[in-house]
């Protein structure tokens, strides 16, 4: 396959940045998207150019590091697929592919396609934890959890914090990420003690980081590689209203 890539190049956070066009030839359809970029980078290094910086780690779809908007869609055209698990067979020979970083005020570009996602860490710091006694692991059946709750909590816990929801949201909102954590922890008995402070603190941290608000459009859940459902945001809202009424 021969492809034309238009990639966002930005030297530093202060640099203005621009789209730069590259030709890549002899791409195997069995390559992953990141392997295709590796091929480009090897060539760039040989030519003495700066390689394209992009985030990646596990390359098996669970770490949440890879983060690029491919042809206007976070993680590219395949549903429920991270960029590293996206294969070149989903593109056609001769395609032009636009590659951009996540775009959000809360995710400033560090270099090229790498953005700083510490805003998510701030949200987690604000309430994404439980107070549990440390020590040896308790018996699995010591705290019973209803099966539907466990399933729903696990579904939300699948979130890998990649930030695709923010990248996809027309409002640059981090609500799906925040709601996934609220749902995951709030459904389990271990998450009850902090349930009310958690939602208020995490929403406050979300807003402080410069994310926008949710308009329930659902772009986030459509782009989420883990399929976190939009209903989690309803749960966050419900918890928020309950907690806010108690506090005021």
């Amino acid at each position, binding site marked *: 396959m021969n492809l034309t890539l238009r990639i966002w190049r930005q030297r530093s956070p202060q640099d203005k940045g621009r789209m730069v066009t590259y030709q890549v030839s002899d791409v195997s359809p069995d390559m992953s998207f990141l392997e295709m970029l590796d091929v480009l980078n090897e060539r760039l290094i040989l030519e003495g150019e700066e*390689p394209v910086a992009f985030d990646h780690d596990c390359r098996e779809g669970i770490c949440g590091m890879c983060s690029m908007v491919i042809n206007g869609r976070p993680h590219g055209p395949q549903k429920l697929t991270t960029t590293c698990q996206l294969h070149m067979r989903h593109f056609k020979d001769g395609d032009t592919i636009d590659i951009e970083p996540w775009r959000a005020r809360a995710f*400033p570009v560090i270099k090229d396609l790498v953005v700083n996602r510490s805003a998510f860490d701030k949200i987690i710091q604000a309430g994404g934890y439980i107070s549990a006694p440390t020590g040896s692991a308790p018996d699995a059946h010591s705290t019973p959890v209803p099966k539907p709750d466990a399933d729903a909590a696990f579904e939300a816990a699948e979130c890998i914090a990649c930030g695709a929801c923010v990248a996809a949201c*027309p*409002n640059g909102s981090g609500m799906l990420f925040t709601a996934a954590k609220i749902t995951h922890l709030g459904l389990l008995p271990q998450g009850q003690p902090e349930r009310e402070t958690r939602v208020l*603190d995490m*929403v406050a941290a979300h807003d402080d980081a410069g994310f*926008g608000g949710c308009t329930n459009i659902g772009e986030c859940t459509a782009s989420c590689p883990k399929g976190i*459902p939009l209903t989690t945001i309803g749960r966050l809202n419900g918890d*928020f209203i309950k907690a806010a009424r108690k506090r005021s």
Partner: protein
Amino acid sequence: MHWTNQSPIRTVGQMATATAPRVKAPMLRTTVGLKVFMAVTGILLVLFLIAHMLGNLKIFVGPTAFNHYAHWLRAIGTPLLPNTWYLWIQRTVLTVAVIGHIWSAAVLARRARAARPVRYAHRQPVQGSYAGRTMRWGGVIILLFVIYHILDLTTGNLNPVGDKQHPYANVVADFAPHRWYVTIWYVLAILAIGFHLRHGIFSALRTLGQQSQQWQRRSRAFALGFAIVLCAGYLSVPFAVLTGLVR
């Protein structure tokens, strides 16, 4: 390749070592608080839309019934309240709701704009519904229409008859066939309200805590059905005048 070392932004080693500082905005100023406020004011306005539509349908009963209904609106609450007092209370509540609805929408729209300072060079169309994408500009169209509508059929300034004693005649004159542009404007505005409600009602329910998959489907269907019924109810009046059913 050691560009991360030169970067002033260090993320490693900062994770979850301390809780974030707790300087909090008032609940209402949070994005969720603003949304809840928008949902509540929106529901108030929807309740008014239902009552208004039912009142409009009185036109099919006849001029006497319609005019009598219009005069009764001024007398609601009497003799407990002096004449027109209830009307003014309702107008005040609705105006506050409209202003609050627009205020929260404007604050959130500004935040959303600020949240993405650099736009995408290539952006797929939003996958959400047309209704969802047009909430903000649709809202502006609805506001302009409401202003026109009050000047037309409440104060009568823009109405060809403008007789406060005979609202039936005002309506019939308003949608006369030669004033087709008024009818088109009215139809477009009602459709804008329909689209606004199709997403708005679902969104309001979600904002107020609707969180199950089953009820998500139901609330989407309800919002769509409600928007269609409301549009049909409102549009029946100008079309009845246009076709001579109401004269």
